[in-house]
């Protein structure tokens, strides 16, 4: 169709976008991420991190070993909130108290 070369499929970031970012003087992988938004979509960089890292090494002349990946943060995979909201195993005994507090808030509200 339009002939775009897509680097990050999730956020529709093109090769041209990355080159444009480098031309503006951004050199660090975190800077390129913040400028273009690559790696911030549903896949969280699984498909684009190595592409951009290798491009940076190639275009800036920095040795690959000197290039660090961007920080990865939980959750690595999507997780339903109801699983995160569960009471902890050792907190099971106090689960009833938590519910009571919840109700108290409801009544107060």
């Amino acid at each position, binding site marked *: 169709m339009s002939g*775009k070369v897509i680097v990050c499929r999730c956020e529709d970031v093109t090769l041209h976008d990355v080159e*444009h970012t480098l031309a503006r003087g951004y050199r660090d992988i975190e800077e390129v991420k913040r400028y273009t938004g690559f790696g911030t979509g549903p*896949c969280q960089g699984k*498909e684009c991190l190595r592409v951009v890292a290798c491009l940076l090494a190639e275009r800036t002349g920095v040795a690959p070993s000197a290039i660090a990946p961007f920080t990865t943060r939980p959750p690595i*995979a999507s997780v339903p909130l109801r699983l995160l909201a569960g009471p902890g195993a*050792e907190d099971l005994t106090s689960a009833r108290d938590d519910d009571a507090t919840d109700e108290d808030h409801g009544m107060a509200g």
Partner: protein
Amino acid sequence: MIDRRLQPSLRFSGNGPGALAGPGPGDGPGAAGQPGAPEAGTRGRLLARGEAVTLDLEGDPVPAFRGETVAVALFASGARALSRSLKYHRPRSFFCLAGHCGACLMRIDGRPNVKACQTPCSDGLRVASQNAWPSAEHDAFGVVDWLFPRGMDHHHMFTGSRAMNAVLRKVTRQMSGLGRLPDPRPGNVRPETPPLRRLAGASAPDVLVVGAGPAGLAAATAAARAGARVLGIDDGAVPGGSLLADPGHGLAAAASSVREARAAGAEVRAASPMIGYFPEDGGGLAAIRTPDALWLVQPRTTIYATGGYDQNALFEDNDRPGVISGRAAGRLLVRFGVRPARRAVVAGDAPYAAALAAELAAAGITVTRTPRVQRAHGRAWVSAATLADGSRVTCDLIAVCETPAPASEPARQHGCAVTLQPARGGFCIDTDAAGLTSLPGVFACGDVTGYQGPDAAALDGARVGAAAAAAASAARAREAATP
């Protein structure tokens, strides 16, 4: 809505062990063997298609099988573009078929952004496209793609007029975002919150193996045989990882490796990805999303055997549906018994490319090999490719065979050092000769330390599994000695 071309099912009908279903068109509509019975499909491999069910694709019935995922069933019945992309509304369909790339997000069962390639088919399951109007194939918002032919610098998109900027901001906010909110639950029932399960101290595993592909399964088996209590987890619905994409292995080989690990005493759980590592939490906790609860695990030793993510190559319109990873083509063929194409271009020179091309050719597919593609052609699906030498070939699939990128996020969260090694796939976990990472008690093996392929990864896993078991045993002895 999603347009479907009327055509016979792409599933192999399975003419018995050793025989490949007649190549070419006309395997018979929906011909997929007897429901419920495992079927001998491609080259006598076992396929577990399971019971026949019907999906509800925006009101349109689509035949499917329980053993298939939504993306595979839709592809086999001729559905093409599944949704549209976030910014330019470019057509999207699956790329990796392994739950990693985020290209196959659809609205499933009233929930947005569900990975169609990881969702098992069930009867009456409601499936719909996202980010498209009126259809994923002909989306009016695709005009944005033409308005910004090279890309978009959203930092410099303001107009001279404040009022105009306010209008533009409103329009952009309306258009941006991915998917729409979930359907409300009937009666607004509060979903139950299952208790977290904590495996620490006395209940902690000696060895946590993250990833149950060739390396992880071999590591789990070796560690369990050395007497360690082993918990193995995998993000896939079926454990096996790259074995399920490799023509030399397949579902039966994966099942046998899993049986071997379990027979040795290891616990192996599918559909249970590690979602994070929290080093600050009581000496470090791995959080694992199992299908019914969140587990917090504090193992004595950890082995990262997370394999690699399929990677795309850089060429014009490289995101066109029908451009899929070579291993995704392998998954269609090897795991699901679905013919990926009639005419395929196999691009790239990754070590697995030659075997894949041979397997596609053996399935009656016309195969063109090229070191790289310059451009993909076609609208909602690939129709041709311009090859490295400038020639143009008609095709309905471009299988991109790049070196997979090490899936190093869980290990990176743990704090393991990594090094960018372009020739080995990307950010590889640093290990010593015994598979030990930069952290004590934390090991890595297989493709996550740099691409090796399934056979080498299994050998690596066996070695590292034994080393981790020895380290765990030493840790246990220290615990016993401490009052």
